[in-house]
């Protein structure tokens, strides 16, 4: 396999962009990407997106992106893995280059969630769960996560206020990230007093509804230096799955898909969790952050909440996690999130991330999941 590099990145600020459709969001991200590279001539397009069919009545997404990016004629496809679509799109783009098929591939993640009332968006998001046996009962995605959170608190004797520390930290980092959707600071009390979505999950445990697009230009080692002075190598890619339904899973608090994706990526990169300097992980809800940290091997099962309480994984620690503000504060335009994460890690490793910086870093990791840790990708990058 050939080596693959991320040669440039571009993002839009995540927001309720009522004045912009898919085309405009993609266009802004790609323009920022073009400004980030010396040469821009992708031969193919991969789009990460979840809900273009259910909320935007649009398929054939790669053609839409081609037109928005001035690339008519280039082939491509959409990758769907629910909220994990973006990370999986990067994995697909990686494969197109590693295989030798192309030298330059444009990976775009795009999602629009704010055009509809929350109940409509909630219904569309619930399609990440087992429709026949979960969503048919009116069970929302937040409720499934809330059920897991209650089990976590019960088994590991974590208190509700302990689990409020994560969103507080995310808002602190988000306040310094110009691309973040939520840029206000909050307190533990704010979290505990916020509206109940699905008890025990409250509004401020949840990522916001927002629109966004992010783009990453992947290139082969043959052209990397022609495209960028600072190409960042992708050294590990892993994917994993778990049951579509929650009921037939071995243990809801030991996410198999994360474990398997991480093992594959670490092995391919030749590193262990302790080597990772900076990570962007999936924290759609507070409980998702805890399970992601544990599944990635940064803490043992049931221990991540204590580590967070002790100040671990914060800026200055190794690994520093979610310096962007995470899904919680940077925002979570579902199918685009994984591409944002990879773009942020690239900027962290180059040293030009516009928010809280990790400092000198060699290895970065992006972990993105769809469903309740149903489809997970882990991507490891090296400076």
């Amino acid at each position, binding site marked *: 396999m050939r080596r693959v590099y991320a040669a440039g990145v571009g993002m839009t600020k995540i927001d309720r962009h009522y004045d912009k459709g898919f085309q405009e969001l993609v266009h802004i991200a790609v323009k920022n990407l073009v400004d980030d590279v010396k040469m821009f001539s992708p031969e193919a397009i991969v789009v990460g997106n979840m809900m273009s069919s259910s909320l935007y009545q649009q398929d054939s997404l790669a053609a839409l992106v081609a037109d928005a990016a001035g690339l008519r004629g280039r082939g491509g496809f959409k990758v769907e893995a629910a909220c994990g679509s973006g990370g999986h799109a990067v994995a697909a783009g990686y494969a197109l280059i590693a295989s030798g098929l192309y030298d330059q591939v444009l990976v775009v993640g795009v999602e629009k969630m704010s055009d509809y009332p929350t109940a409509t968006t909630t219904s569309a998001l619930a399609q990440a769960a087992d429709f026949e046996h979960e969503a048919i009962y009116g*069970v*929302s995605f937040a409720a499934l996560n809330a*059920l*897991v959170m209650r089990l976590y608190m019960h088994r590991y004797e974590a208190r509700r206020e302990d689990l409020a520390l994560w969103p507080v930290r995310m808002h602190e980092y988000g306040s310094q990230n110009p691309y973040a959707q939520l840029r206000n600071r909050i307190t533990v009390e704010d979290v505990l007093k916020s509206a109940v979505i699905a008890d025990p999950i409250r509004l401020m445990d949840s990522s916001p509804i927002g629109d966004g697009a992010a783009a990453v230009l992947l290139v082969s080692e043959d052209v990397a230096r022609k495209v960028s002075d600072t190409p960042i190598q992708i050294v590990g890619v892993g994917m994993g799955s778990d*049951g579509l*339904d929650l009921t037939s899973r071995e243990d809801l608090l030991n996410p198999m898909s994360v474990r398997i994706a991480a093992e594959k990526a670490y092995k391919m990169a030749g590193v262990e969790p302790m080597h990772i300097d900076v990570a962007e992980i999936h924290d759609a809800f507070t409980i998702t952050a805890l399970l992601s940290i544990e599944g990635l091997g940064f803490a043992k099962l049931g221990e991540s909440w204590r580590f967070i309480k002790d100040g671990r994984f914060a800026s200055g620690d190794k690994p520093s996690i979610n310096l962007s503000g995470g899904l919680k504060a940077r925002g979570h335009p579902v199918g685009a999130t994984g591409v944002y994460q990879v773009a942020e890690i690239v900027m962290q490793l180059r040293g030009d991330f516009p928010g809280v910086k990790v400092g000198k870093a060699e290895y970065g990791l992006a972990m993105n999941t769809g469903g309740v840790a149903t489809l997970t990708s882990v991507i490891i990058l090296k400076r």
Partner: protein
Amino acid sequence: MSPARVWRERGARYRLEGSKCKKCNKVFYPPKPACPYCGSLDVEKVELPKRGKIVSYAIEHTVPEGYRHLAPIIVALVELENGVKVLAPITDAKPDEVYIGMEVEAVLRRIWEESSEGLIVYGIKFIPIKE
């Protein structure tokens, strides 16, 4: 939602049918054509016990379209007497009465109506056992 789709799922949703793997003998719900544990493609349908205990639950206040009249929905993961887990709503109970470990029993209830003239979908809900 099509009538055929609702009809195909009648075993799992009306009778609480799961699957049993003929190779490793594990039983699971919902029924699947392959064993999620050992990967065997040889499984058979089995009816599951109707009684169990709540493993965990959530009280859902922000509810998807079409279910608003049911809010708040109590969503529970129930471990049946044979160890198989089922996810379904709890009904005939108030949110503050529900607790982890609570004993419940499966009943057949109306779960969704397409519209005033459309399909009516039935399925499993759990009620507290009062003895």
